[in-house]
Structures are given as C-alpha cells and as structure tokens.
C-alpha cells in the first residue's frame, strides 16, 4: 500500500476542493456597513493623547474626538468660537480671557470646566511630559489661571499676534481622568481618548483599525455619519485597490495615481476626485554654512539650473504651483508680485563665473582654485519625491558642469543629520499652520539649535520677524511680510519648489461632499439615499 501516483492525485484534488470550500465560505463576509465612513490610515499613530502625540495621523483622529476653545472657519479661515463662546483681550494684548460654553460634557458625563484647561496647560509645560513639540509654541505663555468655573485666562509675557490662535488652540484633556497620579505620558487614556467632540472613541484594534462612533449627546450640530473607521493600510497601492473595491471610502492619492490609475470613466462614476491646497510646500535647502552654498550667487545659480516648470509638469503631472517663499500661497502674506526665478542655465553659469567658478581644466566640471564644484545631496530613504528629484538634478547639473552625489539615509538618521547640520543640500517639505509666523524657521536665533538648519541669518529679516510678532494690525503686518518675502527671494536660502495640493478620492456613496478652503469636513457628509 505504498502511495501511488493516483493516490497522490487524489490527495491533491481533495486539498484543492477544501481550499475552494474555505474561500467560498469566507466570501460570505458581511458587506461593509452602509452608514459608516471608511478612511485610510497610512501608519498607526503612536498615541491618541493630543498633548504627547507627534504625528499627523493622531491629529486627524483626535480632531473628531477632542475640541479646542476656538477653531478656524472652514471657508474664511477666521478664528471662530468652539468650546469658548467668546473671549476678551486686554488692551496691552497680554491677557486673553475665554468664557467657556456651559453644559458641555465629556463623553463620560463629567462637565467640561476651566479646570480642564488649567490642568492641560500645566501638563503640557511639565518638563516630565513628552510634549516638546508643543512646548515650543507656548514659551511666551506665562500662566493660565482659572477665574471662575467657566472662565479661564492666559497671560503672555510678550504680545504676539498669534496668541489668540495658540491659546485658543491648546489641546485640552479631561482633568478628572488624567489627574490620577499615574504617569501622564503612558496614561491608559492615551489609548482610550475621552473627548467632548462630535465623535466618541469606540475601539482600537492594534495594527488594524481605529473606530469612532457618533456622539449622540454632542452639544453642537450632530454629524450624519454614524461611524468612522480608520483602516490601517501601510501599503499605498494596496490602499488604492481597497478603495476601488469599496473597502475604503476616502483616500489621498499621489499625483501619478491621480493621473494614471484613477483617470478612467469607471472610476469617476464611482468616486469624486477633489483637489485643494494646504499650507505646505517642498523645497531644496542649501546649507549656508557649507563652503559652496554660503555664497548667495551660488544659491541663486542653483535655482536657475533647476527647471521647476518641467519637473512640476512631468514628475507631478502639473499638480501643484511653484512657490517663491515661505508663506501659505492662499494667504495675504504671500507676495504675489514676486516672479519665480526662471530656468536659465546660462544665467546660472554667469552667476557662478562671478563667484569664481569656471572649468579651467577642461574636465567638464567647474572648479575654483583647484577645487571642483562637487557636493552631496542628502535625502531620506522613504522620500520618493526626493529620490526622483535628485536623480533628475544629478543629470541636469552634470550638464551644467556640477558634480552631485546622493546620500540616502533612513529617516531617523536623516533627521539627526539635519540637527547636527551635517549636510550640504537637502530636500524636504514643511507643513505649516495657517498663522504664518516665520520665526521658527527663519530667525537667526534658531540657527544653532532650532529649525533654521540652513543657517539663514539676515539682520533686516530678523528685525521684520520680531516686529511682526507684535504687530496686530493685519495690513501693516502683511506689508512687513511682503518685504520679508522679498528678502528671502533675493537670498534664496532655499530653492522653493512647489505647494502641492491634497488629491483626494471620495466614494460617491456620500452626498454633500464639499471642498472648503480648509479641506474636507466629514461632519457635513450624508450617506446617499438616507
């Protein structure tokens, strides 16, 4: 009774049938819930504690659970009341008093009061709390005091035009939950947030999804959508497939996906494709500390060597706008009179010649005093845009006589290099708030240990930044920022690249999907047919 080939065949056939049976049964998975919204999460947030969270994913989720004293209107971007009904500002602009809405409750029923705000502020400033990324914004806030049950006052040490935004935007956590003696950083409610907002946290299946359900006791206008499910899908191409299959409802697309993989009629009949600009831009940063790029002419020349139009059209399929400066392109502070430096390799070569660079030894590479024009471009290994940009730049620059090497590092190492200023050129993007204060990035005090890692230092710019921080008149401040923008344009500490829009595909299962200046507001969406 040795197994013969026919027997083996029998076994195989049985195995195949079994597998088919498994698949068949398993296919009877339930259809997705009709009135739930399935959103795509690219990576798992570390924590949902709004004071210690650092990533954008946590911010997205927390937006629906936690609320702040004020918020920005979706269309006008003005500061409007949220948990605070009104506020007063002292004439010296140092004291901000907020009058809280009464009767707002945390999702566990306890009332929201000024104590929560005072506690949150103290927790944020506490040196033991891992909130370094926020502490930076509240350095000038001297104190937060409870005036009465529903009134709280912030005191600034110096007037600051964004004070209202920052005080009003402070993350607020429930004092009665977090103030229980356990370590704030690892508090169990970091994984089980309790908020006052339109959605309640329901569950977090690690590695899979985070679920929110509608807060039926919400003090404000209740959203239509009963449930939001954030599905964790790290692979972006898998996410796209899931979107097409209907397992996801909303997804942010890359430009090539927008153009090549979602352009069909079939796709458009099932999905909206929406585009809107957020305050962010990408750039090439030239380290002014390095020998090559300390010279303004060299930096300007580099900008002339880079064909931004072509790269935008070809690499990003035209989805984006070239920017010339640091401000949000839709804001008033952005100086629209400034034209981007054109792609002009001849001008670039002329500028370099002025700076002393020319090809004296005929090897095709520019040199000066025996040294070749050769530099290293540092990118992070996860950045696709960086990889493609540098590959293109390397070719283009070599034609102009410049030798460029590419160093690719993991993100952790890359940030380390930024911090230690160990680079010559980098490409990155900044994600800004709507406020627009250039202090953190451009003031000379931030060059040693702050975010001004390209070492931009200009006296006039410094003076403007400092004065603007205390300028409450918007027109005057706008003029100051326009002048600042001119200076940056002259100096080219960065070669500014593009402000790229958010490209979002939304399932047509939902109605009332509108694009606001701030983006999309899930709270107003309705399920079709309901």
């Amino acid at each position, binding site marked *: 009774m040795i197994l013969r080939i026919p027997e083996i065949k029998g076994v195989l056939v049985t195995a195949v049938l079994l597998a088919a049976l498994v698949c068949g049964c398993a296919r009877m998975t339930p259809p997705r819930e009709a009135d739930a919204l399935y959103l795509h999460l690219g990576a798992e947030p570390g924590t949902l504690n709004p004071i210690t969270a*650092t990533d954008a994913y946590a911010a997205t989720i927390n937006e629906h659970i936690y609320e702040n004293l004020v918020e920005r209107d979706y269309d006008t971007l003005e500061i409007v009341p949220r948990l605070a009904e009104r506020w007063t500002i002292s004439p010296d602009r140092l004291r901000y008093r907020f009058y809280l809405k009464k009767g707002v409750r945390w999702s566990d029923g306890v009332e929201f009061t000024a104590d929560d705000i005072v506690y949150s502020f103290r927790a944020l400033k506490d040196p033991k709390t891992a909130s370094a990324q926020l502490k930076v914004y509240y350095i000038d806030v001297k104190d937060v005091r409870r005036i009465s049950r529903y009134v709280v006052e912030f005191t600034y040490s110096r007037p600051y035009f964004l004070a209202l935004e920052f005080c009003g935007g402070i993350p607020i956590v429930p004092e009665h939950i977090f103030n229980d003696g356990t370590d704030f950083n690892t508090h169990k409610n970091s994984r089980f947030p309790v908020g006052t907002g339109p959605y309640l946290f329901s569950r977090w299946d690690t590695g899979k999804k985070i679920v929110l359900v509608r807060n039926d006791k919400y003090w404000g206008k209740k959203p239509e959508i009963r449930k939001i499910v954030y599905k964790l899908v790290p692979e972006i191409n898998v996410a796209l497939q899931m979107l097409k299959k209907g397992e996801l409802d909303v997804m942010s697309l890359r430009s090539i996906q927008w153009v090549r993989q979602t352009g069909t009629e079939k796709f458009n009949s099932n999905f909206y494709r929406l585009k809107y600009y957020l305050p962010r831009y990408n750039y090439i940063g030239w380290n002014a500390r390095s020998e090559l790029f300390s010279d303004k002419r060299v930096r300007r020349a580099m900008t002339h060597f880079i064909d931004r139009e072509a790269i935008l059209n070809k690499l990003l399929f035209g989805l984006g706008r070239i920017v010339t400066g640091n401000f949000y392109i839709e804001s008033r502070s952005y100086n629209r009179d400034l034209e981007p430096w054109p792609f002009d390799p001849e001008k670039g070569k002329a500028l370099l010649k002025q700076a002393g660079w020319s090809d004296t030894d005929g090897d095709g590479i520019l040199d000066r005093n025996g040294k070749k024009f050769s530099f290293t471009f540092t990118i992070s290994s996860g950045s696709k845009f960086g990889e493609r940009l540098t590959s293109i730049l390397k070719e283009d620059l070599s034609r102009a006589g410049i030798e460029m090497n590419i160093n690719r590092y993991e993100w952790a190492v890359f940030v380390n290099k930024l911090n230690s200023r160990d680079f010559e050129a980098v490409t990155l993007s900044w994600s800004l708030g709507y406020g627009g204060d250039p202090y953190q990035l451009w003031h000379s005090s931030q060059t040693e240990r702050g975010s001004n890692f390209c070492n931009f230092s200009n006296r006039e710019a410094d003076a403007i930044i400092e004065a603007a921080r205390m300028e409450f008149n918007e027109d005057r401040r706008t003029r100051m920022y326009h002048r600042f923008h001119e200076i940056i344009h002259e100096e080219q500490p960065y070669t500014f690249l593009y402000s790229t829009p958010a490209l979002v595909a939304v399932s047509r299962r939902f109605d009332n999907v509108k694009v606001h200046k701030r983006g999309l507001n899930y709270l107003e969406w309705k399920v079709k047919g309901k």
Partner: protein
Amino acid sequence: MKKYLLKRILLIVPTFIGITLITYLMVRLAPGDYTTLKAGLQGELRAGSVGMEILEQERKLYGLDKPIIVGYADWLGSFMVLDFGTSRKDGRPVSTRIADALPITLALNIITIIIVYIISIPVGIITSVKKDSAFDRVVSLVMFILYSLPAFWIGLLLLMYFSGGEYLNIFPLGGIMSDWAEEPGFWRKLLDIAWHLVLPVVTLTYGSFAFLSRYTRANMLEVINQQYITTARAKGLSEARVVFVHAFRNSLVPLVTLMATLLPGLLGGSVIVESIFSIPGMGMLAFESILARDIPVIMAIAAISALLTLVGILIADLMYALVDPRIRLESRI
C-alpha cells in the same frame, strides 16, 4: 550526562549576555535615536518641531543620555525580573506589543511548518523509494525551481494576480481579518482568518519543500541501503512495512532533531511577507523598531530570539546524543 547538561545551561548565560550586549551596543551607537522621530513623519516636518532643546529634553526622558554600560545594565536588570520596559513609540508595555504580534507570527509559522512537513515528508519518502524514476526527477526539478523563486517576488505576484481588483479577486488584499460589524461566530471568524492567511502561507511554504523533502530522501536512502532492510525484505515483509515501519522510523531521528532547530524560527516573522501582506507580526515589529530605534522593543526581541535559539541548539544536541549512542556528547561542544 547531568554534568554535561549543567555545563551547557551555564554556558548559555555568557552567550546570552554577549548577544544582548552587542545588540544594545549597535543600537545605541547607531546614528539617530527615537527622539528624532518627534520631529515628524517621513518627509514632512512640522514647522518648529525640529530643535535641539526639544530633543535633549526627550533624550533625558528616555535615559538616552546615560552611558552605554549603564544603559545596558539597567536593561539587563529589568529583564531579569521579566520587566521588558515600555515601547518608545506609544508608551505601551513592550510585553503587550509583543503579545499582540506574537500569536499572529506563531500561527503563521506553525501552519507553515505543518504544511511543509505534511507535503515534504511523503514526497521525500516516495522519491527515495522511486529513486531516479521520472517521478523523482520531475519532483526534484519542481522543488528546485520553487526553492529558487524569490519570496518577495512571488508574494507580490500572488497579491497582484489573486487579490487585486484588476485580475482575479479571490483573496483579500492583506491583513488578518475582515471588518466585522458585530463579533462573528467562532467558525466564521476562523474561516475568515484562514482565508486571509492562504496567500501569505503559500509564500512562506513553497520555498521550504525542497530542503525538507531532500533531507528526508537522503536519510531514507541511507537507511534503505542498510543491512537490516535487506534482512526485512528477505524475511518476506511487504514493501509497505519495510518502508514505513523500518526505514522511515529510523530516519525519523534527524527529522525530529531538525524540528528542535526550528524553535527559534518560530517567533521570527518574515519582514518581507508581512510587509507585502500588511500583517502586523513580529517581523514588522522588529523592522519598525529598528527604524524607529525603539530600544526596549529591539532588546526584547533580540533577547527572546537568543534564548530560544540557544535552548533550541541545546535540545537538538541532546536529542542527537540521546538517539545515536555513537556520538559522544563531549565532542559536540
């Protein structure tokens, strides 16, 4: 025997310390540390979030400013009392994070091992009996090809062609379970998980058939040519009895000892397969932790793997010696 056992167990200690110390050294010396992740995620920095004060404060919080030896001693001390520390990424205890990822990897590995054994051993036996026949040659060729196919390529192809919306849509796009509105019944849940695991398991198993079937075949061949088999045949026993009862039994030994060496592999997830199929197992945990310099997690994984490997080797050696009296234990140090 007892003395030998004791000696080996004692020797595990310095080896273990060596492994974990070297791991700790490498991770501490590696450029970048967890605090750099506070600056933002891949590619996009939040304005103002990069700054030295920030990072130094964080560093102190996590004890990264202590010298390496102190850091290691701290860790070792905690480890001895089974305190694995808290993960830097989300502040949860390392044991919880491992407890989340481990069952998945364990399940995948056990299923893989079972399937590999179920298929390879019979194939090995048959090819040894039908040595040099057409069957033997075809099977060898197929096994060989399977062995040479790169796992990440096959995984990608399987995902693309059998689960993507564009081609065949039989399997899910990854993950372990579907989304259920309410908790499904036990069998439903099991079927669902099985359905999700088909493609990853296929990717994990196909390459291993070659080795095990060849190993079985080789061992069987060695045994079959022995005297006692000829004797058994001469005694008139049926071919089946000869093969299964006598030959196979005797070639079992190396197979079983092989299993002992699989022990450490049980907990190691394949980073590649997990990455392609979006499975949150030990492989992804280890990979992410290395990228994030999440030291407590890295150390815990290294320590557990090291222990298991050492124990696995010990067991394998013991079984070898137990089973084959010709091998003297002392020479197997």
